[in-house]
């Protein structure tokens, strides 16, 4: 992540969080935190506890962040800094799910909005090595159509949290929970279509180490406590090598979109 991209990210984050932006120029950002973000980021629970006990209005902190290390003032933020990761984490915590409507301005009559379920997931291939990729899928809850890169599609639309005038929403034919299960199956299908040499390789590494271990403990068979230790070592190898795919949800939501919003491939 480039420093300029980090700066943009921070700016949008604090803006979205409702903070006053006191100073914003390339490489430097100064903001006055909201109570919510102060509590989330500044790690001073005793202060807030005390203030609230007294029934007072707390004073939130001003945060100066620099993405250009040459700047004099401020905490230097780069891709590895704990502050950025705290902010990344909080963005996720603050936005688990969403509901939005496409901001259409119909020329004539009432326009229907189709309910879409959007889901952003992280897929991780895990063994003693690991790699991940992100999938964004959407399912039309009326007709069951499914698209990839859903997040990218909706990001290009104009969206609003309130239903626009002269629009009405169609009722889902597919219940959201079933939509989720259908998307699960799609994810599963995509994973199964992928190559899994990595998993075969991990199994081989596991097998090889397990064989050495087994031989080793066979030689010590009958000695005190040996079975328990052997089991423990076997378990450790399993944890080290066992290949599996982890699918975790980043976030998701309901999107009510006009008939032409999503182009089906």
């Amino acid at each position, binding site marked *: 992540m480039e420093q300029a991209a980090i700066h943009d990210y921070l700016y949008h984050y604090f803006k979205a969080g409702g903070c006053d932006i006191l100073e914003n120029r390339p490489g430097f950002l100064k903001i006055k935190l909201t109570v919510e973000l102060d509590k989330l980021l500044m790690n001073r629970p005793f202060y807030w506890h005390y203030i609230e006990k007294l029934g007072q209005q707390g004073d939130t902190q001003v945060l100066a962040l620099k993405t250009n290390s040459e700047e004099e003032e401020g905490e230097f933020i780069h891709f590895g800094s704990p502050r950025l990761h705290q902010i*990344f984490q909080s*963005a996720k915590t603050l936005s688990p799910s969403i509901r939005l409507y496409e901001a259409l301005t119909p020329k004539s009559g009432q326009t229907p909005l189709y309910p879409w379920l959007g889901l952003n997931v992280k897929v991780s291939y895990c063994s003693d090595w690991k790699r991940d990729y992100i999938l964004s899928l959407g399912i039309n809850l009326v007709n069951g159509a499914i698209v990839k890169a859903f997040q990218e599609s909706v990001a290009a639309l104009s969206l609003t949290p309130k239903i626009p005038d002269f629009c009405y929403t169609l009722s889902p034919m597919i219940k959201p929970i079933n939509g989720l299960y259908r998307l699960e199956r799609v994810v599963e299908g995509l994973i199964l279509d992928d190559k899994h040499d990595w998993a075969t390789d991990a199994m081989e590494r596991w097998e090889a180490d397990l064989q050495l271990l087994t031989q080793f403990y066979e030689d010590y068979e009958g000695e005190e406590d040996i079975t328990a230790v052997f089991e423990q070592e076997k378990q450790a190898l399993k944890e080290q090598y066992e290949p599996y795919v982890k699918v975790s949800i980043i976030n998701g939501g309901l999107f009510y979109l006009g008939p032409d919003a999503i182009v089906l491939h």
Partner: protein
Amino acid sequence: MFQHPEIRFDRSWYDSFIKRIEQDGPWADWQLFQLAYTSEQQLAIPEFQGLVAPQHLPELKLLPHQTDTAEKVIEHMHGKAILADEVGLGKTIEAGLIMKEYMIRGLAKKILILVPASLVLQWAKELNEKFYIPAVPQRKAYVWEQCDVVISSIDTAKRQPHADIILQQNYDLVIIDEAHKLKNHRTKNYQFAKKIKKKFCLLLTATPVQNRLSELYYLVTLLKPGYLGDADSFFQDYRSGKNKVKNEEKLRELINRVMVRNRRSDTEMDWPKRHVESIDIPLTPEERRLYDSLLTLKDTDIVQGFSLITLQREACSSREALYMTIKKLLASANSQFIQETLQPIVDNIQAVEVNSKAQKALELIQAIDDKVIIFTEYRATQLYLQWFLQQHGISSVPFRGGFKRSKKDWMRTLFQNNAQVLIATEAGGEGINLQFCHHVINYDLPWNPMRIEQRIGRIHRLGQEHDVHIYNFATKNTIEEHILHLLYEKIHLFEHVIGELDEILTRLELKNIDQEIAEIFESSDSEGELRIKMDNLTSVLNAERLEQEGEDAWRGTGSDT
């Protein structure tokens, strides 16, 4: 047959989503929602191979051999390795980098770091400041369970109630520093380390020893039980005679798959130079008389079981150092004879007015006009020097190995900010870093060359940006001069890279070289005999070094799996 890996869906999010639909919210802000997606895209790591940690550590200057090592450990050794770089190449950095890589990739969360007690805070500082890893020194019992990355001494960890708690944890990664201390598999430390549940494991050691097959065996077995087979057949296959190695090639190949050993000569680093200067110091007539008068003790019972050499070395250091010992001898003296024999020496001590070495040290310090560390073997000399320098307006701080960690740190800070000179009686233990100083005076020379190495290693290490100046004092026509010229200069001790000598001595099983030397001095009747014996010793050391260089043993570039 293995078809495809198991797929595990984390469905914990589903419930809260459905509940929000039912309760009509609360719903997130669209901008934040998109930011969360962006950050996950940034944090996703698309490749199995390669290191991502360096991108997270823009302020850390990593050397090529350090990143190579981390990659090798993760990709070829599957996270179980012995890191055996020569001293000063940054094993801690390598371990930190591997740890960081695993943490970023989400492969390690629960981590235990066992280090010597004196290094706990240093590790915590480095991991927090250099790697942004929130590592916590263990102080309270609850830390084991509540904190993810914990640093402790093994001596604390193995004691109750800690041991039981630790053995219940499932560690993703265990790091053991100074792992050569675990070489004996019968010790409690070894047995404890063996029982810790661990997925990945790094053992850090500076001295992997080829000759000590059993140490090697048990260290590797701690790391990967079964890798070298059972003890009996291992020794059958690789041990010949008492402690010689056979099938060396095969063993080396095996070991290279679990051990990384970088040598200074392999790295492309620009090491600061060492400038070594030997300074011969003539004694004053009074000092000479004192030194020579010690010879009157040679064939008496007084120094029995108590080496004359010790007294001579003390006399070379300072009259104060010698007097401390003479005083003890007098106190325990129960015969008129002893009193009478020692009295002239005491008189000679009192007659000495000038300490030639201290005088020389003063001149040198004034000329250097920068921070200087003086090493002496004796506390009495240390105190004297402090007083002496103060008389001449030079501020100094004392330093002893016995100081508590906090006092060591305090003295270091005082030296850095407020004093020109640090007077140390020993190297001060591992981990004290005095790189801001570039001048060392070896006021008197220890007989164990390893101690010289440790002294120099305090300042001549990774990160030192200046050339280092070393001044060796030797009083003329004394035992000191012999040590300097007949031993240290012949084996090029001062030009040696750190760590090399350690290996040579270990391989020759000459760890008690100071005793060897003492014996040579005591048993030589003439100057000529002494020279011949010292020559023998130095040629053995030099031959071993040549062999080692030629052989390139244990080079960390063996075959990969």
